[in-house]
């Protein structure tokens, strides 16, 4: 039986569950055709083998209540879902969903609101299946009114609920800037501590694949001066789930920046529950020669450049800062004290971006430890063009990173 499962599992690894209501079973590619009779047999085997213990709660529950006369398609889908869940390799948007679901199970005050989050399942599938499980009020489909539903989330948070606002694209949250800045960020202060606003504002941002200027915005630079909010950026499935859970549990308003191009990253994450710290940076690759600070998608460009650099004999230390407000200057400082050279690689705009603030912070605190001026590679100060080549040159590319490190280490 294990061998049977293994063979199916190998092919299910590259398989995404399409919407069951739309796709007939036989068109599921890369899998042997599973007939419902077989599926039922496998499920019975699983129960006998005690395999259900390692499944997540919701699948265990469904396994338990699966009646024998169930429609064939449902049985097969259940089996496929089970198989794709073990042993816990998943995509970034699934990791976000898992974190979200666990927190919603844990605390009945957690609710989600945003455009297309409910019945559509989320524009990037982060909330898929949650509306069916938790109901329409807890996973609320809002009209296209960012200002108001963000305000609504803040009002609900004032009474004790823990809403999560999803911006379909971070750029749309500019319409809610007043609510985020004045009400979300400042109410705790202006009420003298009477109200806490435990909201999470999340959504994908960043430069995608030719999405155009208005849909490729990086809002971290605009939000960073708002007092009272915290900002984090996730980059891997592991830290996405951990940061999502930490953000929901935090009493402060947290803005969680995701990236449009990172949703399909795959990684194996722990089965047991974990929560990450919102103010800590992640050491991606320890090194000796230069500290490269980065976050979100640029982490992958940096790692690609790091391969080239290692071949050329350099030893870069790569840190994913994760926490954009406040900066984890402790980890960063220790690294600066070791390498004495800093390169910041970010996707933000050059003017007034996260890199600019980080440069100022490092200069202020660790000036004596620097052997060379801090180099900051950011996106160009232009609206993101539609043409593919131009868009490529708007953001920092690995070749530029390699060149910058070579320059810095001379």
């Amino acid at each position, binding site marked *: 039986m294990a061998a049977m499962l293994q063979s199916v599992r190998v092919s299910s690894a590259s398989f995404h569950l399409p919407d069951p209501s739309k796709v007939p079973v036989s068109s599921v590619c890369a899998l042997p055709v599973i007939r419902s009779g077989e599926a039922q047999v496998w499920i019975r085997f699983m129960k006998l083998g005690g395999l259900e213990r390692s499944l997540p709660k919701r699948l265990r529950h469904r396994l338990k209540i699966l009646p024998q006369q169930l429609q064939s398609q449902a049985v097969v889908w259940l089996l496929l879902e089970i198989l794709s869940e073990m042993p816990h390799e998943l995509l970034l948007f699934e990791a976000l969903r898992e974190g979200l679901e666990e927190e919603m199970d844990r605390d009945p005050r957690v*609710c989600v609101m945003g455009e297309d989050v409910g019945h559509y399942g989320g524009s990037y599938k982060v909330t898929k299946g949650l509306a069916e499980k938790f109901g329409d*009020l*807890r996973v*609320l489909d*809002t*009209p296209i*009114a960012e*200002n*108001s*539903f*963000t*305000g*609504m*989330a*803040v*009002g*609900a*948070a*004032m*009474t*004790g*609920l823990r*809403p999560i606002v999803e911006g379909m694209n971070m750029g749309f949250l500019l319409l809610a800037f*007043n*609510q985020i800045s*004045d*009400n979300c960020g400042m*109410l*705790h*202060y*202006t*009420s*003298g*501590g*009477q*109200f*806490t606003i*435990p909201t999470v504002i999340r959504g994908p941002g960043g430069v995608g694949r030719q999405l155009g200027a208005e849909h490729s915005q990086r809002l971290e630079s605009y939000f960073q001066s708002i*007092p*009272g909010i*915290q900002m984090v950026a996730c980059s891997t499935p592991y830290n996405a789930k951990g940061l999502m859970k*930490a953000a929901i*549990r*935090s*009493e*402060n308003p947290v803005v969680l920046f995701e990236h449009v191009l990172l949703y399909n990253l795959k990684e194996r994450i722990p089965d047991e529950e974990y*929560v990450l*710290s*919102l*103010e800590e940076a992640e050491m991606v690759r320890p090194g000796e020669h230069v500290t490269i600070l980065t976050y979100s998608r640029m982490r992958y460009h940096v790692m690609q450049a790091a391969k080239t650099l290692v071949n050329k004999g350099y030893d870069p230390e790569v840190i994913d800062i994760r926490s954009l407000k*406040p*900066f*984890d*200057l*402790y980890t960063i*400082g220790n690294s600066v004290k070791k390498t004495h050279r800093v390169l910041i690689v970010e996707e933000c705009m050059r003017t007034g971006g996260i890199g600019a603030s980080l440069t100022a*912070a490092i200069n*202020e*605190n660790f000036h004596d430890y620097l052997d060379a001026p801090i180099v900051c590679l950011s996106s160009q100060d232009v609206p993101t063009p539609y043409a593919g080549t131009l868009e490529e040159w708007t953001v920092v590319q690995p070749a530029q990173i390699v060149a910058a490190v070579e320059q810095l280490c001379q």
Partner: protein
Amino acid sequence: MAQIIHRSTNLLKTVSAMRTHPPASTTPITVETSLPFTGHNIEPPSRSVETTPQELLSFFRDMVLMRRMEIAADSLYKAKLIRGFCHLYDGQEAVAVGMEAAITKKDCIITAYRDHCIFLGRGGTLMDAFAELMGRKDGCSKGKGGSMHFYKKESGFYGGHGIVGAQVPLGCGLAFAQKYSKDENVTFSMYGDGAANQGQLFEALNMAALWDLPAIFVCENNHYGMGTAEWRAAKSPAYYKRGDYVPGLKVDGMDAFAVKQACKFAKEHALKNGPIVSRTLHVRPWSTYRTRDEISGVRQERDPIERIRKLILSHDLATEKELKDTEKEMRKEVDEVTAKAKESPLPDPSELFTNVYVKGFGVEAFGADRKELRAVLP
């Protein structure tokens, strides 16, 4: 009631003994509102309002207190003890008092920056208010909010907001939370006629109607939005009709009983059928953008305190002198508290960094360098 009687002179005691005994404080009295209600997509409530002598006298007392507080705030502002913005509510006390009479402390109220009297109505003390206005640490927001940021969480008063119209979606959120926790309470989102032209208002109306939230949108119309007259800013001044599919009610905001009746009616409607818009009409006489004739005319005809005074006198609940004594008593109270607030201490410099963040799950507010704590969190 007993206090007022004790304050009378001997002569008056004799006079009152000769008069027929005044009605007991809980005997119901029926009062007619000054103007009929106008409904939009809804049957308006009746003009007859039930009240008791106790309520009438408490209305008078509360409104006089609010009026005196606002006048004192005005003189403090002119003396530069209150800086920045100070938006006064004198002339509109009927709304604060009438609304409180119709609802409980579990219902939520959220309003814009003209919040001093609503704060008092919700149970805030004079000391909290004056200390906050003068930026002292005994203020309701520890001196860090100011005139536009009064809040009282325990009694469901959610402020106190400076940006015109931004509080309306928040009110929608409060109603959402009430629906979420199924606790049979309502939210009153108050805003002015200036804010009625904000887009977020219509967005909030749409959402409240879509999800049947127990939200009541109250537009306090004083015909001026910031400094600009209504006819210059709004194409349709019938704010109670602006809800379109949401029923509306036009209320005379200078009559405390009209407001009380409207709020009671609105609360019942919101709990059963969803949101409702109510527009209370006021004229705020004491403002710099009106002519002198406008001001004196309004004072005579439409002052809410005068109306209650006439009602009390016509029902023989107290004498002219007793009412004047109440006014003097309120004035004295306000003066005492103002003096006390003037002496109260300013906030400590370390308060600059408190309450920016909450010490929650794994959070401490550090400065740029994590080694050095810049703020000691509560």
